[in-house]
């Protein structure tokens, strides 16, 4: 069976999916990146083969997310795409006619406006990560509540408590203040969900035409409290699509399929064997000019396969291969 592999390496999670020609998800994985993208990718690829039927042949690979270049050179990707395009492609496939996509991940939150199947506008959080998954994670662990139960707890709230939303420092000190005054935890958590939604709509969604159908994806979409707060704020239904937590990876796999089919090229996928190769990353400071760029590089066995961080082409791999 022909299939396509999609890998989304984000700040908090690394997601891997395998899709067949028709777009059905054969297997999917949601893993914590834990600051070690290389090991997580290797581990994930090994694990996903165990969920796949024997006759699967990977005909194309796409990578996305902030670690897309790293993942791309490791796996041998046919397509390396930004996460906005990947999310939009996946959203349009699962919810035809979708007009608005909310995506909240670990460090990023974005809004994508789609009209007649094409992206017409998007925005991403710029200078502040307030209200993204990392902050929710941090609050859940401070309160000793498993993140998976955070949202359902918010739904049990009967009285809303106002929490400041513009900045996580404000939000946290407000939460502590309310907790010390004796407000029940579910009300505080619900207040936090409302604050994050307010922050998202005022910042990321500022001035955008939010038209239904609206879908909500990314890791944070698992949080029923946030979804409910969105619905209350907008007065419209907000759908959480299937595979909402791995939509970036789904989009990457679909883009790989598009690329392979339109160019009839053969995939550059290196195979699942890369889980057993030796990878090593390192970094150094370039002394070529006062910019002192911090260069990061990755080795596969003894060969450099990728370098990043330079502001000039001095350290480009392509250049090295020409010599």
């Amino acid at each position, binding site marked *: 069976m022909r299939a396509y592999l999609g890998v989304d390496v984000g700040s908090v999670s690394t997601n891997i999916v395998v899709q067949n020609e028709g777009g059905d998800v054969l297997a999917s994985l949601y893993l914590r990146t834990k600051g070690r993208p290389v090991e997580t990718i290797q581990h994930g690829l090994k694990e996903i083969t165990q969920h796949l039927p024997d006759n699967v042949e990977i005909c194309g690979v796409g990578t996305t997310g*902030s670690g897309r270049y790293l993942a791309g050179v490791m796996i041998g990707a046919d397509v390396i*795409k*930004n*996460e*906005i*395009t990947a999310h939009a492609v996946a959203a349009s496939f699962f919810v035809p006619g979708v007009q608005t996509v909310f995506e909240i991940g670990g460090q990023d939150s974005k809004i994508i406006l789609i009209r007649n199947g*094409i*992206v*017409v*506008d*998007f925005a*991403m959080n*710029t*200078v502040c990560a307030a209200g993204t998954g990392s902050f929710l994670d941090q609050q859940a662990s401070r309160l000793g509540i498993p993140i998976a139960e955070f949202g359902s707890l918010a739904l049990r709230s009967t009285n809303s408590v106002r929490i400041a939303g513009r900045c996580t420092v404000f939000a946290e000190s407000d939460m502590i203040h309310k907790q010390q005054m004796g407000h029940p935890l579910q009300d505080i958590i619900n207040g936090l969900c409302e604050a994050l939604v307010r922050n998202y709509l005022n910042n990321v969604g*500022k*001035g*955008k*035409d939010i038209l239904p159908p609206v879908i909500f994806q990314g890791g944070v979409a698992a949080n029923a409290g946030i979804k409910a707060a969105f619905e209350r704020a907008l007065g419209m239904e907000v759908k959480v699509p299937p595979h909402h937590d791995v939509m970036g990876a789904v989009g990457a796999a679909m883009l790989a399929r598009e690329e392979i089919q339109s160019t009839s090229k053969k995939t550059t996928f290196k195979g699942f064997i890369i889980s057993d190769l030796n990878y090593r990353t390192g970094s150094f400071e370039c002394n070529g*000019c*006062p*910019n*002192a*760029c911090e260069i990061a590089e990755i080795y596969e066995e003894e060969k450099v396969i990728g370098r990043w*961080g330079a*502001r000039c*082409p001095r350290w480009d791999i392509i250049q090295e291969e020409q010599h």
Partner: protein
Amino acid sequence: MRRVTFPHMGESYRTFKMLLNDLGNEVILPPRPSRKTLNLGVQHTPEFACFPLKILMGTYLETMEMGANVIVTSGGVGPCRAGLYAELHKKILHDLGYNIEMIVFEPPRLYPFNFIRNVYKLNPAKLSIKAIIECIKRAWRKLQALDNLEKATHVIRPRETLSGATTKTYKKVLEWVDEAYTTNQIVEAEKAALDELNKIPQNPERIVLKVGIVGEIYVLLEPASNLEIEETLGNLGVEVERSMFLTGWTRDNTWKETVEGMTVKEAAEPYLPELIGGHGRDSIGNTILYAKRKFDGVIQLAPFTCIPEIVARTILTSVSRDYQIPVLTFFLDEQTGKAGMATRLEAFVDLMKRKKMLLASGS
């Protein structure tokens, strides 16, 4: 001994160096802003001030180390705090123990005497007024040549067949213009440089998107402050047209407002009839003009916390809707990582490309 320096803004230093030398000054060239510049600047400026203040502070401190003791810079009119930066820089430098002289040029159109006084201060060679005018004319021609070369790279880079060829050639030919001295030499060097750039192998078939760039003057004109966004866009197959060049800005502020300047003001009128300082109104007017010229998109660049550009950004939402043109805003600050910008630019290019292809298939 007086040693004169000035802010670094793209390639314009080549002109200022020549002009100040001609008037008999020893010149300390400002280095291209780097991480060192940023570190120095951030250390000695208020945290809440905008990026240009910090970069310029760092640049001045670097040139102080190199022996500069006179700074030539521009002032500003209208309600934008950058107009006060020259005074603030002077205070900070004095506090740090640098006994410097600050020569601040206000727009001569509004402050002619300030201009004459300042030129007099920078004329140790005691040239006659006629000779000074000749020098300024020649410098002006060089500035134009530099701007013209840069404009050419914006058109050629997205079409180059060998990636990086334009940047490489551009670096080489800039030196030709740099070495030219007489007006004739400048004109010849400019021609030779443009010919050389046009020799770069190009793919005329490639679908190239056109994007207009608007925003605050310093982050527009100094590539080191905007993470080389124009080069990045060129490499993504986008032809950029920047709304501001030093020659254009100088013309608007020196003699009288140009026709181009008036058109921008007129275009912005329905959305923003007031001068709000900085280049807020220009950002709006230029976006509208780009939309009318059927550009594929507009990118707004602004220093983080820049009030005029924040106001403009809010209004650009309506402009974008009314004129059906995608607008992407970047607030620039201390970040040196390019990944965030690259992601947004790639997505923006995808968006414009898909829209263009859809329009092409529909017609």
